[in-house]
């Protein structure tokens, strides 16, 4: 195919489309809808991927969490419930004995208590009793004020670092540092606020408060809960070594005989990949069905209009053939026209979706916080993919009309009156 012919074909296509603007628009409507589905689906999926990455960043990709509960193991829930709690002393022993880790800190969690500030009251959050080293993990990053010190940790001072959501609920952007809050009747001095970190998958992280573990125990009691251990590897390469050491050490601490199963889980960020995979799949499932359906409509729409175009331009085809256009050239002319028509539909879809995506990502999270993972900008790869898809769909739709045009007998075609 010569460049001449291709550029000529593109010009012809634009001419033909400009003559029938409304008709071209209507013909490409199916593609507009189909491409919109592709774009919106890709947009949601890329948002999910971003949410996953953000989640990894909060939990830390070099972090392991030893817990009674397995993050990924929904099915084994009953079995895990029967596991013995990891006691505070077991956790402390572990933290003291582990060698290969950069950090290991126990985390005790308590739900169901209210937090009060002046007349404001907030509940539905959790309290975490932890060590001062929490400030060294990604989850302990500070927005306002400071984290508690080793000294405050040692003496079990009644100080508290608020999660972002708790801070918003109680103080609504005011400076919290130096104010007192009450938990179960006891006064805690607010010393800082943790950075907003919540993602769709992990929105509870903003809904928790941190205090020295000794203070935690004096409020909520020493026993009756399972303590988890956060281990910071320092680097991803160390993870394997630490996992092995942790397992051995924990089995030893919990007196598990050789051959017996672990009665604890070593969790890592990988566990979230399966959660995301399920979400991705459901987006795909819904999206792909709608997309295929609208592309079928789109193909029929374009094919129909191309048949009309071939019929209307029979005389023109005859003239072109008379002056030397080969079958392949005529075929190409109509394929190009169908492809451009479809691509034109894709451009409309780009414009429409860009506006929709911007508005949705800007305003929807205010009403539905779970949608905060959505980006207001479409990823450019998506536009590229959509462009190729639209061109492919157009070509597909154009094949049969183009073959019909190419096979027209020039004598018959020239005899037409139009």
């Amino acid at each position: 195919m010569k460049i001449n012919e291709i550029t000529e074909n593109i010009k012809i296509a634009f001419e033909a489309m400009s003559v029938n603007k409304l008709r071209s628009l209507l013909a490409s409507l199916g593609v507009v809808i189909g491409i919109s589905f592709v774009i919106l689906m890709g947009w949601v999926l890329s948002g999910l991927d971003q949410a996953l990455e953000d989640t990894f960043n909060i939990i830390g990709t070099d972090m392991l969490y030893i817990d009674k509960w397995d993050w990924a193991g929904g099915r084994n829930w009953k079995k895990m419930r029967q596991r013995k709690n990891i006691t505070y002393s077991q956790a402390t022993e572990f933290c003291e004995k582990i060698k290969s880790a950069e950090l290991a800190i126990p985390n005790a969690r308590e739900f169901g208590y209210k937090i009060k500030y002046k007349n404001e009251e907030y509940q539905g959050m959790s309290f975490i009793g932890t060590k001062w080293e929490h400030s060294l993990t990604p989850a302990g990053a500070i927005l306002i004020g400071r984290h508690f010190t080793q000294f405050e940790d040692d003496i079990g001072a009644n100080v508290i670092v608020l999660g972002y959501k708790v801070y918003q609920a109680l103080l609504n952007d005011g400076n919290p540092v130096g104010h007192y809050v009450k938990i179960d009747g006891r006064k805690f001095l607010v010393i800082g606020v943790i950075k907003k970190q919540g993602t769709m998958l992990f929105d509870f992280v903003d809904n928790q408060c941190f205090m020295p573990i000794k203070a935690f125990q004096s409020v909520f009691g020493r026993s009756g809960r399972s303590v988890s251990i956060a281990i910071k590897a320092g680097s991803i390469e160390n993870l394997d070594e630490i996992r092995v050491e942790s397992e051995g050490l924990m089995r030893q601490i919990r007196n598990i005989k050789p051959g017996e199963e672990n009665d604890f889980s070593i969790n890592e960020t990988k566990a979230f990949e399966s959660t995301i995979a399920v979400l991705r799949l459901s987006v795909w499932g819904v999206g792909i069905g709608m997309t295929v359906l609208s592309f079928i409509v789109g193909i029929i729409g374009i094919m129909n209009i191309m048949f009309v175009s071939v019929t209307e331009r029979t005389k023109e085809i005859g003239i072109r053939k008379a002056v030397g256009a080969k079958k392949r050239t005529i075929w190409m002319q109509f394929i190009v026209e169908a492809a451009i028509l479809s691509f034109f539909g894709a451009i409309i879809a780009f414009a429409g979706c860009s506006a929709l995506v911007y508005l949705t990502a800007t305003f929807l999270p205010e009403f539905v916080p779970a949608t905060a993972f959505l980006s207001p900008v479409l990823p450019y790869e998506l536009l590229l993919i959509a462009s190729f898809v639209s061109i492919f769909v157009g070509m597909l739709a154009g094949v049969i009309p183009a073959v019909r045009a190419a096979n027209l007998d020039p004598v018959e075609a020239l005899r037409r009156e139009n």
Partner: protein
Amino acid sequence: MEIKEVINNGTTLIDIEHIAKIYQMGAEYVHAIRDISLQIKKNDYLAIMGPSGSGKSTLMNIIGCLDTPTKGKYLFKDMDVSEMTDNDLASIRNKEIGFVFQTFNLLARSTTLKNVELPLIYGGYGASLRHEKAMKALVDVGLGDRVNHKPNELSGGQRQRVAVARALVTEPSIILADEPTGNLDSKTGLEIMNLFNELWKAGNTIIVVTHEEEVARFAKRIIKLRDGLIENDSVNHEQRSLIEDSQS
């Protein structure tokens, strides 16, 4: 190129031997051409005449490589057209044949210049050469000042001149005109015939299909068809030349 040299010496351009064209219409077979043999030499000026149904349109389509005969042999510059594929025929039409139609058959949405460039696009010429050749052809037919007009902005005579320019632009071996004056008033018709005369004198080979004696009078040789056969093939001793008329 060698072939052209030989033909310049007056050898046969078109050699048609016992061709027939049979159409099937429903259950019936229509013999549009029964048996025609014909030679056309370089720089011939031929008029093909006959009443409607005589097979002159079919003959023109076959000579113009728009159609192939059902039987017989058609040699164009010693190439066997009757055996050619659609693509080869398109290629011959592009390089060797210039068509002029009764209804002009210009692309309505394209400018004069674009219309004349059309065969060159399919001939694979680059944009600048295309432009240059098309401009020259338009100047040659006296439309150098109408290049950016669309067909509907031109008179019938001007449109037919555009068609002639389009036919000439690839420097084809023959110019094939089908009732070229059929849609023109007699004065404009004469102008077009005068143009053909000039082209013939410049060395072109011209075949005009017509049912009008007035038009046929310009040709050097007149073939009369009837019922798919050649009824008469003779030299026109009273060939009319408008240029000479206007000089006298």
